[in-house]
């Protein structure tokens, strides 16, 4: 166990910093529901950051660190699937869209080089054809579209690879949600320090402090659980991380909006660029109900050891 970043991990994140700097602040005068950044997506591809999991000396944990860090910015770019899933399907390019069903809204379909379509019998991986897509206009802060049909060139993955793709999707959701939540909380904490009512900054009131402190604890745990899931790369840790994140999201969204008052509901104020990504992530991959079942099956299969003692290996 070592909770400090290694020198390689620090180097990775420091070199990412320069690239992310211009995207840390919300675009001025954006007033848009979605801030998909073509530039950042291209930079990430060009600089090789998205290939980190396949580089020697690096792995999935490092990929998850990147996913979390990039997600904390107020722009949406596709990182999770490109770093965590791409190595499994031969790295055909980036972005990669994940779709949980034909006719269901999915992120990045229009921008994607590849789509992974999850089905009960495995995962279909193919090229989304532009004329088979219907873009969606919505309040969600991710670019969304639906797939009208299965891509004609789709390869059908089953068994272990399909299970691994699915698991990595959960790890990606957990790491991404942790980063988005962190960004949302950071903005909100700054807001309650700046905004004065009753002669004090809002952040002096204990009722507000306690909820934000609970949020900080939840988010810290989300990050660490996501990193551990990436490190272990097994179904149990992936389900724990994703479940915990999808449960935390609802409270983080509610509190961040609540303490930002009416300002937080405007497009002028950037909070929605985080919270309306979270709203999408909350139900992704079946949401907490699905993750809960997955986890229960992992932990209590075939049934709990009768004396309740745990394995720590």
């Amino acid at each position: 166990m070592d909770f400090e970043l290694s020198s390689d991990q620090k180097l990775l994140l420091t070199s990412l910093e320069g690239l992310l700097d211009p995207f840390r602040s919300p675009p001025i005068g954006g007033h848009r529901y979605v801030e998909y950044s073509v530039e950042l997506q291209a930079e990430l591809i060009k600089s090789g950051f998205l290939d980190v999991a396949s580089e020697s000396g690096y792995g999935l944990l490092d990929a998850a660190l990147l996913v979390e860090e990039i997600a904390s910015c107020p722009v949406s770019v596709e990182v999770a699937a490109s770093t965590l899933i791409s190595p499994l399907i031969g790295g055909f390019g980036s972005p990669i869209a994940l779709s949980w069903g034909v006719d269901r809204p999915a992120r990045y379909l229009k921008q994607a080089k590849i789509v992974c379509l999850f089905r009960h019998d495995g995962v279909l991986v193919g090229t989304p054809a532009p004329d088979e897509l219907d873009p969606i206009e919505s309040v969600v802060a991710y670019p969304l579209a639906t797939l009208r049909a299965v891509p004609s060139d789709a390869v059908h993955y089953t068994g272990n690879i399909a299970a691994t793709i699915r698991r990595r999707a959960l790890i990606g959701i957990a790491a991404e949600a942790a980063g988005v939540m962190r960004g949302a909380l950071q903005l909100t904490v700054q807001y309650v320090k700046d905004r004065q009512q009753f002669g004090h900054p809002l952040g002096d009131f204990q009722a507000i402090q306690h909820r934000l402190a609970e949020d900080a604890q939840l988010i810290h745990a989300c990050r660490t659980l996501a990193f551990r899931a990436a490190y272990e790369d097994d179904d149990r840790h992936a389900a724990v991380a994703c479940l915990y994140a999808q449960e935390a999201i609802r409270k983080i969204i509610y509190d961040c909006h609540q303490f930002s008052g009416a300002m937080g509901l405007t497009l002028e104020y950037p909070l929605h660029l985080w919270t309306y990504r979270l709203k999408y992530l909350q139900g992704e991959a079946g949401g907490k109900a699905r993750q809960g079942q997955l986890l229960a099956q992992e932990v209590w299969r075939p049934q709990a050891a009768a004396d309740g003692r745990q394995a720590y290996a």
Partner: protein
Amino acid sequence: MEFGWTEAQQAVRGKVCSFLDAHLPSRWEQMACLSPGSEAVTNFSKSFCPSLAEAGLLIPHWPAEYGGADASTWEHFIIGEQMWEAGEPRGPQYYNVNWIGPTIMKFGAPEQKELHLNRMRQGDVIWCQGFSEPSGGSDLAALRTRAERKDDRYLINGSKIWTSYARLAEFCFLLARTSSERRAISVFLLPMDRPGITVRPIQSVVGDGDLHEVFFDDVEVHESERLGPEGGGWEVVRYALNFERIGIPRYALALRTLHRSVAALIRDDGFSEAVQGAAASAYAACEAARLLVYEVVDQRARSSPSTGITSMARYAIVTAERGVADFVLDWTPHLFASDEDPMVATHHKRAIAAGIAVGAAEIQLNLIARDMLGLGASRGL
């Protein structure tokens, strides 16, 4: 950053588990249910801890010069985690090994070390912690018990409350005021058989032996029984609490209880999808608490100063305890209301205090808000 166990760490865990298998009596679970401060567990601890010491598992983390093996913080922690999961067969003696012993090593005079550390490493001495008072709970600095100097002695007058293990303790790690100035507090290593001490058990829902009132009526202590300088009590307490920052690994017993409850549901064909979801949420809350605690252990192992992560870990533990206790009440209420599974009862009695003892949950939130979020200090810090 990495999350693996070393082989040595796994070996320690294996050794502790085998030790527990070999040394816990068949009716241990019924006994554990009586709480660590009960007469039965306290007495049991006086034979269990000497065997633990013989196996090198009582104080391996103490320095060799005090009879330990200079083992790592992690080794010490793994032992504590397994002990708590088992229902804490060390009884009240976990105090001694975790923080009273190490605090005496730091501040004790040679004779104090000789007397107390020897007893602790033998594994048969019981201590209690006399901090809280009717006037000083979360606001410990409001304590009123006085130690008035008379030449080379002090006369102690006042009272303590909620003092766990007091009735069967041989010594008390006592905080008392040595002048009227709010922060002028000193620590005494007080034998509990001194004339003038009265202990009254308080009946409670947390089990026997966990709550007492202790009254001091002109109790004499010699200055050689003071730990650290007069008026220097806060420094001693801060040092002691720094050991306590890891706290009790409560999620370990919580998880065990959750497994018991689920096993009962599976047996009765009641582990439906809805129940699975609820069980998974409680499980995830325990895992979150576990990882945050591990981060605190890691900080302590590096001798880094305590950060807001400590408060986060404590708050996550409270959430996990509540998650499991609620799961049991929601889905296996019969296990709560009966003595069918003593470990479920054990957990419930201990979990109920999680958000109160050793710094209330709200105090942890105050600290997170101040130390991690940089928000203005709320009252009570």
